[in-house]
């Protein structure tokens, strides 16, 4: 336990932040005037959305990086980030449907943003499935990078949907400032921060695991080469 704390102390840093986020979300903030208690769903909803956007952006940047430099580190970044981004998109969709049921009485509407987000989810799910199927590592990395860049086009579109078309989503972040009372901003930003921290730690852990798996693969190849006699 001691050694554990010494070596990977950073993973434990997530726990207190999670508790703080839960506290501010449910206890430390007042009910919203118009939305009532159900507004509390939204803090994590917005947090998930932010993280999902950031995650897919990292995937896209890492994919470009891979295509330029051809080092598998970039591929690991892209894969890990897409994986976690997909989890957060799932959370986003689930919390969104729950909120929709409470606020509008319908689980799902074909609102532009909902549609764009669903498409995003499907595309990145396909991207991750493809990664499982491909054969050799370099080829897989190249193809996935190309697909990730195609898929990423949907992210800015998703972000702009509520600005281009009338949507049931309010525009919170505008040029003039944040369109939200201070009492809600505090839990919102704390949730965002907590989710981001979860993302960072998750990335670190996932990439470490991927690197370890890569190490095992390399070693196996080295042994195979040894057995085959140089």
């Amino acid at each position, binding site marked *: 336990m001691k050694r554990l704390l010494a070596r990977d102390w950073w993973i434990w840093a997530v726990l207190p932040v999670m508790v703080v986020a839960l506290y501010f979300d449910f206890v430390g903030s007042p009910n919203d005037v118009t939305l009532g208690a159900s507004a509390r769903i939204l803090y994590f909803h917005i947090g998930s959305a932010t993280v999902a956007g950031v995650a897919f952006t990292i995937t896209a940047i890492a994919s470009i990086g891979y295509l330029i430099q051809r080092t598998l580190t970039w591929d690991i970044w892209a894969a890990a980030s897409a994986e976690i981004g997909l989890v957060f998109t799932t959370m986003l969709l689930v919390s969104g449907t729950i909120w929709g049921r409470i606020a509008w009485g319908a689980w799902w509407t074909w609102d532009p943003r909902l549609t764009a987000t669903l498409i995003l989810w499907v595309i990145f799910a396909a991207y991750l499935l493809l990664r499982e199927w491909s054969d050799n590592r*370099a080829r897989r990395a190249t193809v996935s990078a*190309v697909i990730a860049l195609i898929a990423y086009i949907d992210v800015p579109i998703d972000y702009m949907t509520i600005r281009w078309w009338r949507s049931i989503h309010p525009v919170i972040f505008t040029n003039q400032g944040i369109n939200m009372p201070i009492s809600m901003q505090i839990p919102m930003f704390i949730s965002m921060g907590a989710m981001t921290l979860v993302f960072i730690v998750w990335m670190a852990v996932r990439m470490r695991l991927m690197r370890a798996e890569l190490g095992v693969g390399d070693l196996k190849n080295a042994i195979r080469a040894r057995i085959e006699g140089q």
Partner: protein
Amino acid sequence: MWVAMTAFVVMVVFLFAFALDTNRVRLASVFPGILWMSFLLAGMIGMSRTYAHEIPEDTLTGLVLAPGDRMAIFLAKLTSAFLFMAVMELLTTPLFFVFFSEPWNGEWILLGMTLALGGLGIVELATLLSAVSVNLKSAEMVFMLLLFPLEIPVLITTVEATTAILSNPVGNPWLWLHGLLAYDAIFLALPLLLYEYLWEV
């Protein structure tokens, strides 16, 4: 290829005509959706083989060996796919109007533009994905899995634009046509940027 695609769409027209009870369903409201769903499926069926038929005798290597830019192969495939799509649309669109007794309001320039841009959008992505998946195991699966979600914007914009054009009085399709144009431009530019990477092993 366009023969197969046209035959397929004609079959779809018949099937829809039987599947939808014309007395109860207001056909005008579903007409653009049926039209574009058929075109999308026909495009998928036609284009999934775009690169696949280079496989049996490895003719793709033969093409690569020829002097000239590798990009030309992609652009040629895209052009021919678009022409097949255009011929198919030209032949079958009148059929849709006849069988679904959709009133024709004479907006043929706008409708022609929508057909051309929509067809281009469908084949651009299909050709790109066909190129992406050609060397992969389970290529067909890859193709389908990525094609449908990525084609949704084309489906939405074309259906909305067609609805606007065919409505009485004629609505304004330009918002959707602009969206479609942007999509076409993006998926024309993207392969040009990424295509070289798909050749490697």
